[in-house]
């Protein structure tokens, strides 16, 4: 079973629908017992960083998440906000500490080209920097749906930089996919990226 952490933010139902569409047993949950039973953990998200972290904290699941993912090495997939939580801190509506499993900071997008609007909203192609199981059997230059005003910036941290698997361009470099060991993050929405997105989720399910 794949546990989708229901921390009260955003499009959880869509993520569950997508796993159902690829016939992967998944469950929306807030329960520590489910996180312990799960083969893999997904943290989706739409929303503001601070609220998201506060909700996760209030649920009392952060310790369990860390144990299951960092110690027991269950595959983790962070989608959008769930990827951004991997940072050391977020700077959306004030500074909030993140999970810090990867490092870097979450900062507002700063496109150099005025034609590139913020939020970064829409279908963008992704350049794959290095091979990663998550992007197996997608196009060489796949196109995914992005919807965000902030991004995970390695902020000069070489270990975070090394975790960057794919990037997009939106008036600046946008971190699109990260991976370190069993921890995966995608800035785009696989659950809303039609066939290309479902393929990413199938790849994740295979890891579980």
């Amino acid at each position, binding site marked *: 079973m794949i546990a989708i952490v229901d921390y009260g933010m*955003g499009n959880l*139902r869509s993520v569950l629908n997508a796993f159902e569409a690829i016939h992967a047993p998944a469950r929306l949950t807030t329960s520590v017992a489910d996180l312990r039973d799960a083969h893999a953990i997904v943290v989706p998200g739409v929303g503001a960083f601070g609220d998201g972290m506060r909700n996760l904290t209030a649920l009392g699941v952060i310790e369990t998440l860390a144990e299951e993912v960092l110690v027991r090495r269950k595959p983790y997939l962070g989608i959008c906000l769930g990827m951004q939580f991997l940072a050391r801190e977020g700077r959306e509506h004030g500074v909030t500490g993140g999970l810090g499993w990867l490092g870097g900071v979450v900062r507002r997008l700063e496109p150099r080209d*005025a034609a590139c609007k913020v*939020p*970064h909203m829409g279908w*963008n192609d992704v350049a794959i920097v290095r091979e990663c199981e998550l992007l197996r059997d997608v196009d060489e230059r796949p196109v995914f749906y992005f919807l965000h005003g902030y991004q995970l910036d390695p902020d000069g941290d070489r270990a975070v930089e090394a975790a960057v698997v794919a990037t997009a361009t*939106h008036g600046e470099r946008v971190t699109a996919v990260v991976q370190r060991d069993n921890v995966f993050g995608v800035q785009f929405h696989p659950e809303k990226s039609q066939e290309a997105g479902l393929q990413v989720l199938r790849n994740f399910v295979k890891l579980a």
Partner: protein
Amino acid sequence: MLKTRVIPTLTLRGGRLVKTRRFGPARDVGDPLKAPMVYDAQLADELVYLDLDASRDGRSIERVEAAVARIAGECFLPLTAGGGVRSAGDVRRLLLAGADKVAINSAAVERPGLIGEAAQRFGTQCIVVAIDVRGDAPGPWRVWTHGGTRDPGLDAVEWARTAVAHGAGEILLTSIDRDGTMTGYDLALIRAVAGAVNVPVIASGGAGKPQDLVDALRVGGAAAVAAASLFHFTDQSPIKTKAYLRRAGIAVR
């Protein structure tokens, strides 16, 4: 590079999927669930799904919420939902049902603070302010709310600026005068609003042929184009229209 979005607009009135003309007389256009599935299969980049008369009739979001929940179970593409959204709680319900963005219209005009409240809770990226406008070039363009039945006395360009200052992540800009006429978008209106705000503007109202979309993007400076009659009533599909845009040198998926 970001691809230009082509967005079919689906509108409910009295629980039926319809297409209006100038927000007035409406024609039935098919099944509320099957139509989105068809546009999904035809590679629409996003869908906008609105309950047209919810605010006017003082109804809440139930109808659009139910529709979105069904669509999101079948279609894995971005959905913007709206019609009757009056609170941050309504925004949350629609997001939970499977919407990715929520359009706020009348309630945002009555209480602009709602935009910021919702943006702070759910992120600016999912808060769309829908602006329905009457008037023609060279302006002024007036905002109308409650399905085009009330005039709150606002200038459309000014209101767009205010909405963005409050935290709107996108503007869905509809010309009531062009709605359902298939005579082309109001390019001057689009240009005035797109030039006044730094968030994406979706052009809506008037598309009758693929070249109208090219004009809204090139001349109007819209970030994305919405169309309804074009897809409901002509032989154009999102896939065909996007091929036209591609030939015109516009980056599409």
